[in-house]
């Protein structure tokens, strides 16, 4: 295992310290319990949005803290949900008096810990709503599982809801919008290689030179099935098929296409995938009116990619375009 780290049990803190040093104009890092807030402190009268999850998915979520997106993020150990004390402290730090939305990716650990935190926050008279994201179409029979995982759609939900909160929408409105974004987005991921969790020291699975994992999540867990490696165009087609049919997307839809790298995939390859995914959407009658390409929700150094497709309406489009000023996403201001 070769990584730029000092010790497995220092990775998260060292990286947070680096973020703090690099982005002190935008964010503030708090330790014990670990959480990140905007540099400015709570915004009176505006809904605050808190997210969090295991580390190893950078820039998600800490890189999305800033004006127009998250108010706070709670990083857990690598691939491990953070603990309720982190979420409680973050929630208290950013509450502007009009309630806090927790955006929670659908994993048992995240759900349970955020639930506990919400209970504790309510005891302190903070109004907390939670929206669980579960956009991963790789999980099919969700009745008999922990349910679909929250993956790439989470990034889009955080951006769009962050803009709504910034614009002054109230808690119920932001909550409903978040549910709507989640209901309108579908994602799937594929891995060309596994990743190595620092404290494990070895890859979480191994793939032959001609194999891929199809339908992976973001925790180095094995995917839905193993498949033969294929051309970028074939893989894009394999990925777009379940995405398009699940929602389903239909002729005339306008959508945001998000091609995401898993951490070890170079941008040149993401654009190759984007090209075909875009063409397939067009064939399907779906107009790609917004796009995002880059590594925004990652699995450490995994080589792989995910595709998310979000059906847009006017309000989502407006909030997507609204200014955002965070370490990882910036535009319009």
């Amino acid at each position: 295992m070769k990584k730029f780290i000092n010790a497995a049990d220092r990775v998260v803190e060292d990286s947070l310290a680096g973020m703090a040093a690099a982005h002190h104009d935008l964010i503030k890092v708090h330790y014990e319990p670990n959480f990140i807030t905007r540099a400015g402190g709570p915004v009176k009268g505006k809904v605050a949005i808190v997210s969090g999850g295991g580390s190893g998915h950078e820039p998600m979520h800490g890189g999305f803290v800033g004006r127009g997106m998250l108010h706070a993020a709670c990083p857990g150990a690598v691939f491990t949900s953070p603990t309720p004390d982190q979420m409680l402290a973050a929630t208290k730090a950013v509450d502007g008096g009009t309630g806090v939305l927790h955006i929670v990716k659908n994993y048992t650990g995240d759900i349970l810990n955020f639930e506990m935190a919400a209970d504790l926050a309510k005891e302190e008279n903070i109004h907390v709503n939670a929206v669980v994201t579960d956009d991963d179409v790789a999980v099919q029979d969700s009745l008999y599982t922990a349910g679909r995982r929250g993956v790439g759609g989470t990034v889009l939900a955080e951006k769009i809801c962050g803009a709504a909160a910034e614009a002054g929408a109230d808690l119920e409105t932001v909550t409903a919008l978040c549910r709507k974004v989640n209901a309108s987005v579908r994602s799937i991921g594929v891995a060309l290689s596994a990743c190595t969790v620092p404290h494990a020291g070895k890859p979480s699975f191994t793939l032959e030179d001609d194999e891929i994992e199809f339908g992976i999540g973001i925790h180095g867990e094995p995917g839905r099935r193993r498949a033969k490696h294929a051309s970028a165009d074939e893989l894009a087609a394999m990925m777009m098929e379940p995405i398009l049919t699940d929602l389903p997307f239909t002729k005339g839809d306008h959508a945001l296409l998000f091609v995401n790298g898993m951490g070890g995939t170079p941008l040149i390859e993401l654009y190759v995938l984007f090209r075909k995914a875009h063409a397939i959407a067009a064939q399907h009658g779906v107009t790609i009116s917004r796009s995002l390409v880059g590594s925004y929700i990652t699995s450490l150094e995994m080589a792989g990619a995910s595709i998310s497709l979000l059906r847009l309406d006017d309000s989502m489009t407006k909030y997507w375009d609204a200014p955002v000023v965070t370490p990882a996403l910036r535009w319009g201001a």
Partner: protein
Amino acid sequence: MSGGLDVAVLTAWLGRVAVRYAAEQGYLCDLDAAIGDGDHGANLARGFTAVVAKLGQPASPAALFKSVGMTLIGTVGGASGPLYGTLFIDMGKAAGESTTLDAASWAKVLAAGLAGVAARGKAQPGDKTMIDALTPAVQALQGETDLTAALTASAAAAVHGAEATKKLIAHKGRASYLGERAIGHQDPGATSLAMLLQGLASEAG
């Protein structure tokens, strides 16, 4: 062991378990890597190291369980943090004022812990989770009055339950994403739970 489970014995138990989790961290992570995300051993090792460090001198088994539960919730994270935390917190509630737990009261306490875990995680027996080790362990305690025999039988049942998860498809937790591919792999949470109860049998049995 006739004196029953008092704070001294329980404290020794937790120390023993912390050592075991540290030693088996790699094994538990490997089990989790096969069907989950590979962190279960690290999560428990981190949590129980903190438990031992923070425990101090609790006044009663109830206080001890509560402290352990709170520490686990605050340090483990993941699915197992709230679940192990709830196990101990609900055990603490059931322990009441007792200073020493005998076989019958331990049976009641562990059953309360099981109920708490089931309520929080909504898993049922057969879902391939720690519930599959905990449920037979609670059952094995029923009607057994000798503490040594009770703890030994309970630990054996938990180990057996954990092993039996190999043949299951998972319906809860990360392993549920794998469908059929989870078959043949032993559930890490059930395995760690069996280790927990084995530790108690060794310490107090």
